[in-house]
């Protein structure tokens, strides 16, 4: 059964990783979650991994940190006695060597950095705008993968600590985002299974974005072949599909759902984020 307040995870977990395929509105959801958390009086940090500069504008006043894998890796190497090597090869060169020799190390240091921010105690909630496309599972699996291949050393320690963080629902949860159409819903169901079984991370409520929610229109009230009739039938077909997909998602993925309404033309700005956060506050 879904909890009474689906946004409760904002106060029970300290890190919310927002994950979903490209185009489903991960950044929108990151912004709305951050806004909703600020409203509850939480100290919020947004972490962005993609180099997208838009988040600051969407949630004015919130602290945003951009973490890039190469920069995090360089910092890690410098702090682990490799400053001489870094000097000898150009920084980018050594990063390339290390990243190639040890696949997943860049993901581990990014997660390590997020762990550090969590441990600083400066924030009640860190919302992570997760990596693009299908990279989320690989990203979160990097710690386990590293545990299997590396024995001993600083990276192994890092991998142990990150695995612990991911497995603890009071520290980290993943917010899956989808849209109410069949392929994205299928992908969300598959990703959920992979995250729970392979990564062992706790899933927060799943967000259904761009939902055309509402009762069916009395289409028969307009003349056959009229513009009003065609528009109503289009709208009804979409609302039916969206309701069916939410229902199917609920059946196959027993998680609470958070719904975000369809924004025409998806002109996303700070005001739209406010309105979406309002929709959740009154839900």
């Amino acid at each position: 059964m879904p909890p009474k307040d689906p946004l409760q995870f904002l106060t029970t977990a300290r890190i919310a990783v927002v994950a979903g395929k490209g185009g489903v509105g991960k950044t929108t959801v990151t912004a709305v979650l951050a806004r909703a958390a600020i409203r509850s009086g939480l100290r919020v940090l947004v972490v962005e991994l993609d180099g997208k500069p838009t988040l600051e504008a969407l949630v004015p006043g919130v602290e945003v940190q951009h973490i890039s894998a190469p920069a995090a890796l360089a910092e890690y190497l410098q702090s682990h006695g490799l400053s001489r090597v870094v000097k000898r090869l150009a920084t980018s060169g050594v990063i390339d060597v290390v990243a190639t020799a040890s696949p997943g190390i860049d993901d581990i240091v990014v997660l390590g950095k997020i762990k550090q921010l969590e441990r600083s105690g400066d924030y009640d909630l860190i919302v992570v705008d997760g990596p693009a496309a299908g990279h989320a599972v690989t990203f979160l699996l990097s710690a386990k993968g590293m545990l299997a291949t590396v024995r001993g050393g600083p990276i192994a320690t890092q991998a142990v600590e990150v695995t612990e963080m991911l497995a603890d629902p009071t520290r980290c949860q993943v917010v899956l985002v989808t849209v109410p159409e069949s392929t994205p819903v299928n992908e969300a169901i598959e990703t959920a299974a992979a995250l729970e079984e392979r990564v062992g991370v706790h899933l927060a409520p799943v967000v259904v974005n761009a939902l055309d929610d509402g009762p069916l229109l009395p289409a028969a009230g307009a003349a056959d072949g009229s513009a009003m009739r065609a528009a109503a039938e289009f709208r009804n077909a979409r609302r039916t599909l969206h309701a069916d997909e939410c229902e199917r998602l609920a059946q196959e993925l027993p998680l609470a759902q958070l719904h975000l309404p369809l924004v025409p033309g998806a002109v996303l700005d700070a005001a739209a984020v406010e309105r979406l956060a309002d929709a959740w506050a009154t839900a």
Partner: protein
Amino acid sequence: MGHRVTTRQPDISALLDAPDVLVCCGSGGVGKTTTAAAVGLHAARIGRRVVVVTIDPAKRLADALGVPGGLGNDPVELPIDEGCEGELWALMLDPATTFDGLVRANASSAEQTERILSNRFYRNVAGSLSGTQEYMAAERLHALHGDPRFDLVVVDTPPTRNALDFLDAPSTLSRFLDHPLFRLIMVPTRRGLRVLNVASQPVLRTIGKAVGSDVLADAIAFFQAFAGMETGFRARADEVIALLHGESTRYLLVASPRGDTIEEARYFARRLREKDLAVRAVVVNRCTPDFGAPPSRRPKSAAGSELYDNLRELRATAKIEREHAAVLLGDDAIGPDAATRFVPALPGDVHDLEALEAIRTALFGE
């Protein structure tokens, strides 16, 4: 529901006037895979022997084509209507398997093949090393282009910003061969490259301490095994780049009429322009259909009023969408000879040949 198709010269069917390769690019969630499949379907209808290749590991293409068992690394023929002279095939690229095949083709001996394929580092990176997937896509494209079963290859690129990296196949390859780790352990000799004694390299010893020495040992063993194969790889890559930049390859840009995806589409258009590649067609998917004008006065009944408001709302959405699309179509990076198509949103998903047929009709007419 009437699908009104807006046509602008030049004609989109010129897109299929004897190209060998058609590359579909665009960001995630814009219906790129569906467009690639619909273009493939149309080409098969007009008698081409088409193979649609998807690089996206998601099962979108299988879904769009209604293939129940999913797609694999080998092409499967799809049942389209009888009496159609063309053929429609599809496959989903598996970078690791493709890389294995390339190693087999280029290795000088079975022993070298075995040494590389069983290397733990190779197994880790074959499908995941940055650039490998793009390079394997280009490699596969080259192989399919030479396959006598097909006369048109339609490529559905991954929904990421670096999707066009495969256009840089040779430079991707040289990044790999000119890799600092590769250079560190290889020294040129009169007979080619020779592997240096690793223990004599303090840099490598230090790196080993940071990442784990066995991980590094695997990586070095891989580069050692790889020695001697670079010439074959480079020659192949040069052929691929010639194909991608040649007259027989055409580029199709897919977008949806939303502010964020239009910006992504402009980014792709600029990347193509930088490489002197022309966008031959722009497809704007998922447009709110044009239902026609509302009655001149709001109906008095509650039901009529509700329907009137709905029509007005959808028309307002369509107007916002047209403004977004105009920004893309007006971009300098898209030349005047690019054909444009607006494809109306279907109320449902596209996951069978029937729905695909509706998209095909919206693109190319009856």
